[in-house]
């Protein structure tokens, strides 16, 4: 489904276009030249650890922060010069609940609806409608201080959808939610896109980006370090990681070299002496283990883990950074 408002926009195909966005906070370069290009009608994931610059990027795209360098456009409208137009096209659900704690759920939605220009009658209707579809009707009259984290997040999202904006920013929508609530949130996000909206979501979880996003940008230290479909990214990092703990830590360098040679990929040594390496072809485990035995290296523990965000970074940021980390550790 195509969002009804798209056809009247300046650039209906490109929901977000960011060129060289920069934001400093004092000496800290929170965002350091971010480029993003997001097609309309998709879910786009921005993946990165805490402090990578995800929230700062979203704040600039949603007109809350003025970039120190570069520029960004939402459906072709500049986020600084045409901020008021941009605000008509976006919904923002922040990392921290951006609703009024002192008011009830109904009052929050009613007030936001009124601010968006709905009549009293329409505002009341819209609030009821949203409370129903987000399963909040029972709690509607309670003040928010009595809300659970999941309810608050749902209300927050509901408030972003009053005007049915064609682009929705979700800043870590599931951080801190229990697994069941997380699945509900995922379902809601999929529905949004099915109804024609474009979603930009940030997350710390590779699994979440993998499950939801059509494309992913991996961001670290304020820079986009990789971009592509989940399949492309996973192909670049291997589908899983092989982890080995040696009985004799003295052999670690030999083991490291063997693994590197056999798997043809970089091998990481954790401060606890755990060896880990991306494993593109599970069949290679046998070869690695045989080779280790041939060298007389005994193992304490072997496991194969699905890729984590750490491995994504390790694979992408490469050897140099790993060395640095080792030296620092």
């Amino acid at each position, binding site marked *: 489904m195509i969002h009804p408002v798209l056809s009247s926009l300046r650039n209906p195909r490109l929901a977000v276009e960011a060129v060289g966005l920069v934001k400093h906070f004092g000496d800290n370069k929170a965002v350091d030249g971010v480029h993003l290009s997001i097609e309309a009608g998709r879910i786009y994931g921005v993946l990165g650890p805490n402090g990578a610059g995800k929230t700062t990027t979203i704040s600039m795209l949603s007109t*809350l922060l003025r970039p120190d360098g570069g520029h960004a456009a939402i459906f072709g409208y500049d986020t600084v010069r045409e901020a008021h137009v941009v605000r008509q096209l976006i919904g923002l659900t*922040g990392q921290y609940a951006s*609703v009024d704690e002192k008011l009830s759920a109904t009052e929050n939605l009613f007030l936001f609806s009124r601010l*968006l220009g709905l009549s009293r009658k329409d505002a009341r209707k819209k609030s009821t409608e949203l409370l129903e579809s987000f399963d909040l009707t029972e709690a509607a009259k309670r003040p928010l201080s009595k809300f659970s984290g999941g309810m608050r997040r749902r209300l927050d999202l509901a408030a972003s959808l009053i005007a049915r904006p064609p682009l929705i920013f979700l800043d870590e929508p599931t951080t801190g939610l229990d697994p069941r609530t997380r699945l509900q949130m995922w379902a809601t996000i999929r529905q949004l896109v099915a109804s024609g909206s474009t979603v930009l979501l940030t997350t710390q979880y590779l699994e979440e980006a993998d499950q939801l996003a059509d494309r992913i940008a991996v961001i670290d230290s304020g820079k986009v370090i990789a971009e592509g479909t989940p399949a492309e990214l996973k192909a670049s990092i291997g589908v899983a990681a092989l982890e080995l703990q040696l009985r004799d830590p003295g052999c670690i360098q030999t083991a490291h070299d063997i693994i590197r040679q056999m798997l043809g990929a970089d091998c990481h040594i954790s401060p606890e002496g755990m060896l880990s390496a991306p494993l593109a072809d599970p069949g290679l485990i046998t070869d690695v283990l045989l080779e280790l035995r041939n060298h007389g290296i005994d193992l304490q523990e072997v496991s194969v883990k699905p890729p984590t965000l750490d491995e994504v970074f390790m694979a992408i940021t490469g050897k140099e950074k790993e060395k640095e980390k080792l030296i620092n550790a």
Partner: protein
Amino acid sequence: MEAHNIYTLSRRPTIVQTIRQSLTMAYRGLLKVRYTPEQLVDVTVQPILFTLMFTYLFGGAISGNVHNYLPIIIPGILAQSILTGAVTIGVQLREDMDKGVFDRFRSLPIARIAPLAGALLADTIRYALVTVLTFTMGYIMGYRPEAGIAGVLLVSALVICFAWCVSWIFALAGVTGRSAASVQGISMMILFPLTFLSNAFVPVNTLPSGLKWFVQYNPVSHLVTAIRELLNQNTIGADFWLTIAGGLALLVIFIPLTVRAYMRKA
């Protein structure tokens, strides 16, 4: 779901939209009072308590008896309570701006000024409350102003407008302050000398010369005198016009300062 009129793709909100959005923000302020009625303590308990306390405490010493002191103290309490009421705006603004909900306001296609304008509008209701309560207390204790009901209404209009002008100072403190607590502290530091070092509670001729000088030039003294002349002598004197001029001067200075500081963050 119907498409709403927010997709006008206009470059900026119209005046009518700005006013409507400010009124909605004011309504929000009033809704919050319903959940935290203690927000009204300063404009309800204070006028009642202070009127009783100061009247019976100082009445005999200053005017010989309580009844003769009422025409002096009621205008004084009115001025003091209403200015105390004006302080709250700064603390409220700061609290609001520190919260996540302010980010949402900033991401909405609404006039940037609406949250500030709304807060200032909602406050006039607080000032009205102070005025009604102070006059009611005075009436109960036996105060019958010369000027009658018309004078009382005119004075009410004067103090509410003056408080609104003064609230822009505290709004600036709120917008630029670091935390709600520091805003509260700074505001009280401004407020206490201004209200107590005035002619609100004691006749000026009893004061030592240095203090007398300060009290005579203190704008609060002019406000108090204007109220007294209006209520007790039914006259509009120089102090009335001075107060209005002072209020306007505050607006000329503080509206640009506050709005500029606010817009930088909004």
